[in-house]
């Protein structure tokens, strides 16, 4: 039986019990939707004692389904005020699963200044230990210290100083499989800041001496179905650019189509996307000793991650991804992968969301406070954020707060969360997604760039609501089970192999129709929660400038109506 571990951060009690019956088929995002709905008051102050955060594994955790070990973190978001599910790869979910833990909850809030670490030892015992000298360390230093103390095979889920400072752009770092760099972040929505209010610096796990094996109702059928999925994933990975290059393969298409954001989403075609392109990226890796084809979790057959070295040939950062390159690179007119890698490293150390940070810097540059393309000035501002100067603390509040303070006219956020690396005028399905996502502007709610057939013009609204809905309706299930990038390798036909796995695991009927219903339920639960939290259709809107300002790359404006957008979440 999977376990639920509940840590009360005020009383320091640790309770361990079987997972609720109701939660048996839930994992990852679906579990978070239900848990937050059940236990977190939608009207609570997200940085107050009534917010709870849950770390959980997916529905296939503990099995050999490839990419089954994403870690999902959920709560009411300090940044958006909506429900939030933020996920990351790395070793965290694998270790939790091996310890038999489906969900680990941090609730309440300490009344003293004491900081703790949640320790899970080789015997799967969960305890709270003083954070001691871990406090005040950034994520890489936390991991180095944990390795020194517990050995190289330790798994660390941690917050950097940003989380200690309760920043709303703070994320939660997870050590990557292999080298253990803390480069996988559950970045969005300020959950690192929430962990900071609970005064928990990290969850440090040793490898389980006795690995938990989940009960499988029909082992033979299960084995067969898993083999089909893994085979399809491996085959897909052979040809998918997401696997063969990494997520930065997206730049090759987004650049020329005017989807790659330029200068705070001004709608131009980037004048130098070549410098950020997959070609340049691969050349840098090859010539400096870095590599791609890195799997961030054990057993991954897609291996989309990378290790990036600087010009000096030394390690600079890991997991340099498209969103970072888009928001901290093209969006800032910093058309230099090395400078972007530097920003990426800083963000992983300090523990902040590169999308939010990139959007914040873009708004700042747009007001003229620092110049476009000035990576040095950008790094200086990031250091202010780290030091906690007055402006630095404001940056920690997120893009919208900074934009409002500076009187910016163009603030690219929805529900206070920054939009991702796709200009919504030129990929309208993503514009719809940013507006309608239950998580605030979150491209992964329905990551549709490249999903429509190539004859479709994504800067025309035709077909866009359909593809936004299709992907949203699959993604909620994916976020509860495997990795979204793996779906990129599997393709939409490959997803049809997943219901069979769940069916065999639990000895139930589970078809694609059931998958759609499962996904719909997750989204509708999230919507209901947000409604109870005070959100209305007025909040499901993009910033006005996307409708008013013509994109010079294509002549398009964002022109989806409220009715057209709301229709995508009408599942019944």
């Amino acid at each position, binding site marked *: 039986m999977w376990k639920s571990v509940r840590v009360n951060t005020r009383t320091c009690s640790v309770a361990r019990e079987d997972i609720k019956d109701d939660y048996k088929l839930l994992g990852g995002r679906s579990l978070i939707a239900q848990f937050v709905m059940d236990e977190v008051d939608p009207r609570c102050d997200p940085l107050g004692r009534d917010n709870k955060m849950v770390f959980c594994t997916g529905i296939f955790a503990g099995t050999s389904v490839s990419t089954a070990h994403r870690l999902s973190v959920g709560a009411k978001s300090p940044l958006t005020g909506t429900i939030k599910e933020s996920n990351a790869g790395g070793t965290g979910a694998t270790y939790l699963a091996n310890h038999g833990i489906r969900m680990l909850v941090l609730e309440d809030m300490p009344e003293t200044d004491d900081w703790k670490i949640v320790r899970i030892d080789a015997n799967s015992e969960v305890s709270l230990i003083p954070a001691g000298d871990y406090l005040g360390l950034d994520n890489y230093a936390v991991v180095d210290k944990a390795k020194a103390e517990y050995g190289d095979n330790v798994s660390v889920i941690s917050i950097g100083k940003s989380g200690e400072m309760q920043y709303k752009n703070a994320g939660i770092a997870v050590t990557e499989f292999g080298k253990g760099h803390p480069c996988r972040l559950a970045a969005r929505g300020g959950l690192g800041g929430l962990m900071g209010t609970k005064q928990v610096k990290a969850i440090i796990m040793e490898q389980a001496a006795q690995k938990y094996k989940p009960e499988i109702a029909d082992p033979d059928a299960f084995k067969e179905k898993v083999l089909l999925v893994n085979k399809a994933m491996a085959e897909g990975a052979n040809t998918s650019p997401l696997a063969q290059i990494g997520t930065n393969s997206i730049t090759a298409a987004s650049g*020329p*189509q*005017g989807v790659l954001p330029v200068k705070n989403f001004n709608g*131009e*075609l980037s*004048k130098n996307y070549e410098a950020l392109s997959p070609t340049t990226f691969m050349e840098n890796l090859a010539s400096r000793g870095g590599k791609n084809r890195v799997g961030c979790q054990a057993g991954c057959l897609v291996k989309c991650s990378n290790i990036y070295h600087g010009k000096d040939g030394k390690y600079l950062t890991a997991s340099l991804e498209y969103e970072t390159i888009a928001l901290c690179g093209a969006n800032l007119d910093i058309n230099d992968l090395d400078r972007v890698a530097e920003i990426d490293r800083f963000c992983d150390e300090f523990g902040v969301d590169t999308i939010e940070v990139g959007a914040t810097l873009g708004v700042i540059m747009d007001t003229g406070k620092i110049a476009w393309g000035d990576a040095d000035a950008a790094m200086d501002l990031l250091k202010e954020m780290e030091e906690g100067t007055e402006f630095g603390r404001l940056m920690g509040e997120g893009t919208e707060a900074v934009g409002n303070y500076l009187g910016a006219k163009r603030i690219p956020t929805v529900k206070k969360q920054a939009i991702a690396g796709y200009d919504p005028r030129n990929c309208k399905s993503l514009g719809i997604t940013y507006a309608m996502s239950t998580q605030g502007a979150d491209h992964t709610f329905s990551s549709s760039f490249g999903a429509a057939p190539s004859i479709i013009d994504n800067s025309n609204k035709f077909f866009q609501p359909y593809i936004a809905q299709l992907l949203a309706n699959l993604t909620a299930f994916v976020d509860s089970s495997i990795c979204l990038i793996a779906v990129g390798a599997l393709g939409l036909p490959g997803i049809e192999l997943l219901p069979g796995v769940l069916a065999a695991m639990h000895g139930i009927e589970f078809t694609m129709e059931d998958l759609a219903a499962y996904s719909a339920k997750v989204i509708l639960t999230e919507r209901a929660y947000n409604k109870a939290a005070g959100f209305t259709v007025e909040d499901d809107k993009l910033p006005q400038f996307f409708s008013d300002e*013509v*994109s*010079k*790359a*294509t*002549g*398009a*404006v964002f022109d989806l109506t409220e009715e057209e957008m709301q229709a995508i979440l009408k599942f019944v």
Partner: protein
Amino acid sequence: MISQSAPIVPVLSGMNSHLRVGIKAKELGMTKVLVVYDAGVLNAGIVDPVIENLKASRIDVVTFGKVTPDPPDYQVDEGGKLANDEKVDGLIAIGGGSVLDCAKAINYLTANPSPINQWFFPAIPQGKPLPMIAIPTTAGTGSEGSFAAVITDSATGIKKAILDGNFCRYSLTVSDPLMYAGLPAKPSAYCAFDVLTHSIDSLFSAYDEPYSHMFAETAVRKVVKYLPRVIANGNDYEARQEIAFSATIAGNLLNTNMAGNTHCMGHNIGAVFHLPHGLAVALPLVSLMKLFYSKWRPERAKLVGECFGVHFSGTETVEEIGELTGNAIFKFYKDCGIETFSELELNEEDLEKAIDKMTDDIQTPTTYILMSRSDYVSVIEHMKTLR
């Protein structure tokens, strides 16, 4: 009768569609283009944003901005040489009929030897044409949709045609109302009457092909509905877009049904008296309708009348149909501020010279029932009475 439609030039239309030229040029495989335009569109500020947009899509740009109205053959030869020297792999034409025609002729010379005047119709060019994009700025000659171009033979001063379904065919028309909005009311009206005459003539053409019929009727209705709005407000973008589309489809129908007697007359009146083309072809329309077109095909004359708002009871004679339709056209004509023939006070002697050429015009072979010189004289006499 058995007829065949011609390929239709694809149209990318909408506000700010000119900002997609770069992406579209790339889709067509262009990497280095010759941008053809004239001083007028350059000064109107239309050319630079298009060049900027092409360059943003990493397309190299070579410019040829020397086009003059009724482009002479040596201008085409110069453009062709530039295109070949620079090894361009695409052509972008921004402007009215003269520019669009000049670019078509330049296309010939990228695969066929110069000078262009050896390629006047009926010569057939060989080889593979370059892809071309038209960005029309007048609505208009419809050159963006037609497979012919008019080039002046400098040796004789006579306008000649080149005609080819490959070398004269634009791969794409970009129809952006912003490109048309700068044209003042009077020239806009003249250009729209070119659309009307293409369309109405084609309904009385010997070649009676159904797509062209559909285009003609649509174009007439749209011009009647939207031209007054354009005259009232040049920035009525919806109206500009509708007339632009009408011009383009009226250009397409030139590939099958062709224009007719308004052009036989208008070409030559226009040439002798240096009148704008749109005005020259508009002048004979009412009289031709009353005296000839309505007799050739009364049902079509009725259809045209209906497009101009005439309500027929169904009991009218052929003459009455001609009168009602002709009067409706004349009223529209005057409401649009177009000068009447009598107001122009054209010199009789020169008029005779124009009439001499009407039976031997480019469009003469394609007219429905051949008109004699005296037939044309009767039309002119009728035109003089219109007030």
